[in-house]
């Protein structure tokens, strides 16, 4: 009888341990998600400005498209950030 009780105690202890580990793995994934946000913003601005630069070069309209797409890129970056933070909240 004692053996079974001991075993039960052991199992409870171990299951508590695994629970802790599970929660810690979740927090590490949210740290990864947080890292995601910053680069999302920068990348959109960068890509949009690059496209603007090459459109300008093509049509010889410097610097109209570069400026215009820079602002559009900032908007897209903010939308990206809002979307991914929404996704984090959903989980």
């Amino acid at each position, binding site marked *: 009888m004692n053996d079974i009780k001991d075993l039960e105690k052991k199992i409870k202890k171990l299951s508590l341990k695994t629970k802790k580990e599970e929660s810690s793995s979740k927090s590490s994934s949210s740290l990864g998600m947080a*890292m995601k946000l910053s680069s999302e913003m920068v990348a959109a601005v960068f*890509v949009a400005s690059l496209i603007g630069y090459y459109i300008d070069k093509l049509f010889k309209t410097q610097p109209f498209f570069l400026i215009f797409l820079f602002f*559009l890129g900032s908007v*897209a970056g903010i939308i990206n950030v809002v979307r991914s933070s929404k*996704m984090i909240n959903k989980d």
Partner: protein
Amino acid sequence: MATNPMSQFEVHSIGPKIQIGNFDLSFTNSSLFMVLTVSIISLFFIGATQKKSLVPDKIQLIAEMAFEFVSKMISETAGKDARPYFPFILSLFLFVLVANLLGMLPYSFTVTSHIIVTFALAFFIFIGVTIVGFAKHGISYLKLFVPSGVPVFLLPLIIVIELISYLSRPVSLSVRLFANMMAGHTMLKVFGSFVVSLGILGGWLPLGFAVALTGLELLVAFIQAYVFAILTCIYLNDALNLHH
């Protein structure tokens, strides 16, 4: 010993120079570490699946854990439809992870600290996901760029913004991994050179920092591989289950 913290990222060729057309195809230290990464993964999995016992030994357990981890990640983020892409995501995750961890060894080279490597990975994911989306939904995949419930006069602006946000995916995916790896390794090297220049009297503090940073870098190596794989899953999910 080189004191320049960036010198660890230099690519130099090993062995004979191979030139085809305008391309220098020599075998470099970067290629060496990529080959090492792939062979470590292959050898590990070949070794782990050798016995296939019902009660797994340690190596088999690690392999099964990696397998299950990625399998869970796919089913949580991309659903059932993404099952056929499991081998791709698993190899992607393991390649980035092992390349990051190999870079943590002293005197080794970090493959993922070069933007051209990470961008090549991210760009092929981007192309692949786009092809998957078009293959599954046909021309209606373009609906991804038209969110529902937008007034008509705003559409031209919204479509451009959505297009930019779609095109920025490979850039953000690759820059994140590359920047994290490069920044971490540069910082480690800087603190390492502080230890040498401050000597036995003042060197203890930066040495402590370097030890702590090594732990942090191991965490970052894992997290970045995880993020790289999970974002691939999310993009795949967008392509497979079209909804906005």
